[in-house]
């Protein structure tokens, strides 16, 4: 029972400064297994920075991050092990440009998980089927549309069998007609019970998929609530203002 109650990600009073700029200020949160946390907020509010501290791509200036019960600052020497359990999807996809779609997925399987080539290929194919682009397996990323690239990036992260997936504005760099295909894949993961932390501007998706929504501004959590309450009855003035601006059109 205690196993189930342990948060997948826990942050304690976390702050991150870049020089004199304080991007994140005293944030605490918990993400439980199978939970979907959506973080929204204006640009520069620190939401991406917050997400990037969850796998130590940014080292917090203060506070502590626990992933699956392990303190990241105390486990810096095992950070590669910990990261291999955390999938991350970036705004700009960051696919490896010199490798084919399949090789993009098998690379980390082979050198981090020491898998055999054939085994890794099988996993890659399975993940590509799941995101619906198995036919592009031998193409290079530059030959794919943005939506397809992002789905490959998701497949690449999933292939590592992560315990939690982090999404850093996964649809922000996409043409409008490609956003849906990526959101559909993410929705599929939600249904499968993947633990997810998502930074996004897609309010419709947040409403449909989130268990909890966090609104950040100026590096702090301004409001947190279940999606229905958050979007229907926001309590803070700042949240109302942000939502009215974003939902106006």
């Amino acid at each position, binding site marked *: 029972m205690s196993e189930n109650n342990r948060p997948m990600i826990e942050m304690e009073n976390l702050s991150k400064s870049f020089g004199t700029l304080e991007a994140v200020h005293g944030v605490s949160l918990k993400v439980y297994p199978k939970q979907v946390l959506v973080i929204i907020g204006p640009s520069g509010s620190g939401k991406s920075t917050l997400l990037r501290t969850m*796998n130590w*791509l940014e080292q917090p200036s203060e506070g502590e991050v626990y992933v699956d019960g392990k303190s990241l600052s105390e486990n810096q020497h095992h950070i*590669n*092990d*910990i*990261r*291999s*359990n*955390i*999938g*991350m999807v*970036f705004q*700009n996809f*960051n*696919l*490896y*440009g*010199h490798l084919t779609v399949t090789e993009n997925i098998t*690379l*980390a399987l082979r*050198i*981090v998980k020491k898998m055999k080539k054939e085994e890794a290929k099988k996993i890659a194919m399975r993940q590509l089927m799941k995101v619906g682009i198995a036919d592009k397996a031998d193409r*290079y990323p*530059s030959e794919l549309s943005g939506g397809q690239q992002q789905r490959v*990036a998701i497949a*690449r*992260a999933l292939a*590592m069998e992560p315990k939690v997936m982090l999404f850093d504005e996964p649809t922000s760099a996409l043409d409008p007609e490609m956003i849906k295909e990526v959101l559909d894949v993410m929705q599929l993961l939600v249904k499968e019970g993947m633990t997810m932390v998502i930074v996004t501007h897609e309010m419709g998706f947040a409403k449909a998929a989130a268990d909890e929504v966090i609104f950040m501004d100026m590096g702090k959590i301004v409001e947190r609530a279940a999606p229905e309450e958050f979007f229907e009855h926001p309590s803070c003035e700042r949240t109302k203002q942000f939502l009215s601006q974003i939902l106006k059109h």
Partner: protein
Amino acid sequence: MAVNDRLVTQKNKNGLQTTNEMQLTKKDFPWWMVAIGLLIVITFLLIRIKPDFKDAFNIIRAGMSVTISTTLIAFTIATMLGLFIGLGRVSESIFWRNASTIYVEIIRGIPLLVLIFFIALVLIPGLTNLLSALGTVLIDVGMGSFGVKLAAIENKSISMNVRAIISLAITYAAFSAEVFRAGIQSIDKGQMEAARSQGMSRWQAMRYVILPQAIRNILPALGNDLISMLKDSSLVSILAVRDITQVARLYAGHSFKFAQAYSILCVLYLTLTLVLSLCMKVIERKLGNERK
């Protein structure tokens, strides 16, 4: 003028301004290559029909293997050393970053000719003396077998050809280190982040993600370095290494046939560099196609 005419006719035909003005470099027939080729052909014709050219050519030709082997060996060492130093330039360790920057700045601040003198006539003799002194010490403390070998190293046991190669390699390592650094830094930092987020170590990310892409980007620059090194290898003639420059100099000196000796020397270098740059173009085109 001809270009202007073409622009005008295009405008008239379409009624639109579809000019090639945006195209900054025009792809035209390589007349320059024909001209240089002609120059080379004429020289080789002279070598065939004129006995004094023929004599000069046959003598100078003997230096070809030294020039080519010196260049290729030195370039290989320089590239490997340069990769190592280039990685040092982007290292996370403040020590390696500074050590490699010191190397690059010192080498780049001294003329190649002076460096060749210094490395061949000061650095290498200094090192050999140091090693043989170390050998003597080792014999004294009882590590005789290894000590004897070290103590036997003599300054003159390192030939001038080897010193020339070491000098060129050390110098060009600094240049290729900068090329590697620029190549690594030209790769979007998202690539490193993606690799690290998957659990790769910094070194694994460098080895499997960053370097393969960086090297593809810097191949043209490395090719240029190879061509400059071929030309700079002529400087090793001051160490009396018998490359084509040294052989030509000697020949001209005692036969007084300066025109024959030096025009053949020019054409030999030109032929080599032209062949190299053609090879580079082929490789670049191949890579360019692959990427698409």
